[in-house]
């Protein structure tokens, strides 16, 4: 007998980021990123989050919605995330008013958008951090604004649909100590950021069949992604207080960007010509001396 289970709604917040892969990324001669010439793509951590949502679809038949805030071209990130997750609903929050937002103001727009999605959200996923901004703040800040408990660095999760709870494993890295895998249980709804090492595992035949079916469907959907796409400006989104988004809603500003001055030398390097065989032989001796030193720490 088939047990009737309540539906599960999951959302993913994603970001369009510089594409750091070969042939797409361009660096300036000083080692900094050339943003103008670097192509854009769905951020790698966003892709992992979309994968976690796809797991919920395959395993629990979840409905998936994806959202992003950005310029009109950011719909590329939504399309790419739909291809991964077979999403039913794509949201783009695009308005000049949103430009220049820091993470707090971004979280306000994303929170408002998530509340406009079809169905009441049970889980919202985000990536670990963006590969360009790298703050990792937008996820937890959106969680707090939604009033959802926040679970960071999740490497594995499963849902109990009857009890409406999620069990998740988190990887905690303690600098100078060790790593800890912590298992937690939380009633839904919950906000999860996915650790980069996350890999969904499909164990049963029926899961694998569902996986293939949804993957095929995702290809068709992503090819026609505009059918699923809803674009909102600030007014359409229903932002109650416009001073909470964009520049007015951002406590922080980037005051300036400067080159990090070269610090004082911490070591005094002996210069060795790489083509001088005798010098190389001496370096090897030095290496071996270093390696054979007693470890007294």
């Amino acid at each position: 007998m088939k047990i009737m289970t309540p539906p599960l709604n999951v959302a993913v917040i994603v970001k369009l980021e510089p594409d750091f892969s070969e042939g797409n990324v361009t660096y300036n001669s000083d080692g900094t990123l050339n943003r103008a010439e670097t192509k854009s793509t769905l951020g790698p951590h966003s892709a992992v989050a979309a994968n976690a949502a796809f797991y919920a679809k395959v395993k629990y038949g979840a409905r998936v919605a994806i959202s992003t805030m950005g310029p009109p071209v950011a719909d590329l990130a939504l399309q790419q995330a739909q291809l991964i997750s077979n999403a039913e609903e794509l949201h783009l929050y695009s308005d000049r008013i949103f430009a220049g937002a820091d993470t707090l103001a971004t979280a306000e727009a994303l929170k408002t958008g998530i509340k406009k999605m079809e169905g009441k959200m049970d889980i919202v996923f985000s990536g670990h951090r963006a590969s360009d901004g790298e703050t990792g703040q937008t996820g937890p800040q959106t969680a707090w604004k939604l009033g959802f408990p926040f679970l960071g660095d999740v490497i594995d999760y499963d849902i109990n649909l009857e009890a409406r709870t999620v069990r998740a494993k988190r990887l905690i890295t303690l600098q100078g100590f060790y790593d800890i895998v912590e298992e937690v249980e939380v009633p839904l709804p919950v906000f999860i950021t996915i650790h980069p090492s996350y890999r969904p595992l499909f164990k049963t035949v029926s899961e694998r069949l569902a996986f293939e079916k949804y993957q095929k469907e995702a290809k068709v959907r992503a090819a026609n992604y505009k059918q699923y796409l809803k674009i909102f400006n600030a007014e359409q989104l229903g932002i109650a207080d416009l001073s909470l988004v964009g520049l007015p809603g951002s406590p922080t500003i980037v005051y300036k960007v400067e080159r990090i001055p070269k610090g004082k030398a911490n070591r005094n390097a002996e210069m060795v010509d790489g083509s001088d065989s005798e010098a190389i032989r001496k370096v090897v001796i030095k290496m071996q001396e270093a390696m054979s030193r007693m470890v007294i720490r």
Partner: protein
Amino acid sequence: MTEGDYRHLYVVMEHEEGKLIPVSLEMLGEARRLMDNFNKKYSSEEKVVAVVLGHNVKKICEEMIHYGADYVIYADSPELEYFRNLTFTKVISQIARDKDLARKVSEEYSKTFKKPRYMFFAADSVGRHLSSTVLVELESGLASDINKLTVDDIEVTHQHKTAGKPMKYNKILEMYRPDFSGFLWTLILCLDNKNPAIEREYHPQACSIIPGVFEPLEYNASRIGEIIEYHPKLEPEDLRVKILSRNIVKSEIDFSRYKVIVSFGRGIKESPEENIKLIEEFAKELDAAIGVSLPISKKPYSVSERMKFTYMIPDRVIGTSGRKVAPLLYVAVGISGAMQHIAGIKESDVVIAINPDENAPIKDECDVFIKGRMEDVIPKLIEVLRKQHPKIRT
């Protein structure tokens, strides 16, 4: 805003198994230096307040005073034994807004106290998330991954904050954040909106601090300070995340087990696949672990799947965005030496760099700089190593 609304620097401490973790002491050291300068500059007496939550934490409170705190505010409860974002965010925010605690720290201006002036968190897997949620609750701004801090009065002209007019901001925390390349500093400021149309006060000015960049103070048992207990107000819903188990795991890549580490960076770019193979061969001769610089973890080159999934991963990254290492011998191959990378290797005994560019910053951070292309130098090193008998095995 009156002078008393926002006072003191609150430092959110982290500990594990009854010990303060290193970054906590580093934050206290920097907090002490910053507030000593602040008090001198502004002839004031604002305090460094360490905040710690946990169970049976009383014994580490003393230690925080000896490492630079004027006051320690602690909350002790079995419910706070392990970090839970929801619970900790509630308690830290309560502490940050508590007038009574502020009065115990300093009678002066305590009636008008609203929130701390500044707040520090650790940029690690606990503090990064905690700072994010606390600052939403406190409705203010946060800069992450900071490695330089100063306080100054500055004039700002900003389209929104000042309606395009130059305006004076006092006692602003200047928060410097290195970008992912490690060559640029972004100066981030958290500023009140002084524009009459959108007037709003943004305090505390908060940041998360990269582990390993600031020096802790010398332990000084004669330093005095005061320890204050706080009794948190928690509802059942604040405790709805249940911890079922906690298990210590070793990273798959455990750098601490190796005496030698060979790392590579973007210098492999000429022929990434072949160069990584060469580095593998070299590392094998030295019985070394292989690390990478941060840009490599972003998979910048097309290489075989094996290379991609073995090496181009965050778990291999050495530096402030990854792991700190301290081997007997560290060999940096094709790594330019961004400060984030250097911060992760500075405890190494001997550092050897292989790089064709003698102007690369790594030159000032190594003991031997071999000028040359890795394609030419590494085969020579391997050849000499193979000739050595017996092989030195660790």
